[in-house]
């Protein structure tokens, strides 16, 4: 039984990782062949770094992810506080609408935003590009922030705020000194989610970007549409490495803080 489950786990992991490793291996191939390794080279990596379109869209992606996730976090956290204090019916209405971009297929969200932008672009004389992308990214990010922050209010001791006021805080101090630290984990995970989703988004960006301002996934898409180019393999390898490093770091940090917590508790049950 134990052995069987290990074999099973191995098979699933094999399925998940083989395509990625194939990409990585052929990123070092001297020819464009995807089947035969003819020799080892860093040529594609150099080409990648010299590719202005890729570098520019990478820069765009990062800028948009940073601005969009910070804006979404502020907007969403404020929204969560307000929604939390709403009466039952308005709260339910707002939460249902907030859930829409999460439940809806991304293509529908993308198309609906495109329709809106097209409508206003004609009347207000602007073009698809940086601003439309940014608005789209903020729009699909805010719901994730709200959904991460809202539960923290439910978990929070409802008397904390009153206790802070009782001890002499005005409502602003009470919020920043007591409430904000309590909901901070939710705010942070909402921010992280927004940031990664923004970096990774293709479908919504595809419908809302202009020709002069593209994100990396949109550029990758147009690359895969054209001829075979091992630069994509090189790019995949780099992205994979970055992902591995970030996740390992995250895991190590989490485990460290968890171990510290255990040490503080210290008692065996």
């Amino acid at each position: 039984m134990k052995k069987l489950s290990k074999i099973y786990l191995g098979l699933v992991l094999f399925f998940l990782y083989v395509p990625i490793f194939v990409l990585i291996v052929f990123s070092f191939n001297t020819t464009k062949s995807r089947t035969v390794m003819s020799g080892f080279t860093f040529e594609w990596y150099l080409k990648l770094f010299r590719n202005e379109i890729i570098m520019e869209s990478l820069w765009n992606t990062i800028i948009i992810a940073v601005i969009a996730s910070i804006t979404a976090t502020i907007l969403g956290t404020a929204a969560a506080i307000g929604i939390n204090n709403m009466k039952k019916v308005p709260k339910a209405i707002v939460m249902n609408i907030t859930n829409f971009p999460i439940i809806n297929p991304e293509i529908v969200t993308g198309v609906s935003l495109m329709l809106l932008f097209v409508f206003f672009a004609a009347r207000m004389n602007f073009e698809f590009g940086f601003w439309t992308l940014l608005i789209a990214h903020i729009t699909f990010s805010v719901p994730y922030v709200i959904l991460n922050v809202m539960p923290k209010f439910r978990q929070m001791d409802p008397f904390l705020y009153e206790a802070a006021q009782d001890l002499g805080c005005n409502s602003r101090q009470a919020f920043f000194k007591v409430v904000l630290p309590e909901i901070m984990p939710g705010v942070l995970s909402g921010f992280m989610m927004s940031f990664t989703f923004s970096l990774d988004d293709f479908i919504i960006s595809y419908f809302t970007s202009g020709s002069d301002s593209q994100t990396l996934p949109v550029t990758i898409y147009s690359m895969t549409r054209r001829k075979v180019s091992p630069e994509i393999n090189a790019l995949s390898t780099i992205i994979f490495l970055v992902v591995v490093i970030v996740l390992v770091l995250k895991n190590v940090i989490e485990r460290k803080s968890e171990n510290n917590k255990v040490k503080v508790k210290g008692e065996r049950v």
Partner: protein
Amino acid sequence: MKNKLIAAPYLVWMFVFILVPLIMVGYFAFTDKDGNFTLDYVADVAQYSQIFVRSIWLAAIATVICLVISYPLAYILTGFSKNVQSTMLMIVMLPMWMNFLLRTYAWMTMLGNNGIINTILGFIGLGPFKMLNTEGAVVLGMVYNYLPYMILPIYSVMVKIDKSVIEAASDLGCNPWKTILRVVFPLSLPGVMSGITMVFVPAISTFIISRMLGGGGNLLIGDLIEMQFLGNAYNVNLGAAISLVLMVIILLIMTIMNQFDNDDGAVLL
């Protein structure tokens, strides 16, 4: 803290960028190019029923395969010690952090007639098989891309099942198989349900996977929509009508699924 106004910026944002765009989808679906009311486009969607059936069918197959692979995997994961669990989970989820265009591209290179799989098969005297540009390739792409969306919700529900409930089942006469059947499975149903929606919704609306792995011959709803907005077929009203029908289908499926689900919205994340 008691101030509801703090949610106002988001409420405005939500109205302009979530609600209005959706209303516009509805508006375009029921009007013609001059803005007059018409049912023509919604009626036209019926012409594409074959594509709808294919989309639902392929997405359903992919969802079932994902479920069959994920359920045992999630169960196996919960059997490991806490530390091993979090590491294994990270390893399983890691490929998801690669941009899905790259993951799909990887399969595209592997499945081709002179791709690595046919090359290997060729060594043992088989093939070459036509694998790329088939329905099978599309299903494979869906399974590969969305598998983690099935594993994660099932795992996170399963891991929360109280150990003592499992012990109680054993205490009351269940052998390990009966325990899975009578206790673990019913208790993990909410995870299964959200896993199904999380795989089915992106699968039914994808246009990347079908385009990259299905060639031109296996159009899905997503391709149809994309063609009306950004492709040669440019017809915004028809595109809006198709999007609307897609939304209704998904809403119907979600309602059915929600019958089984608890009010545990966090599982969706």
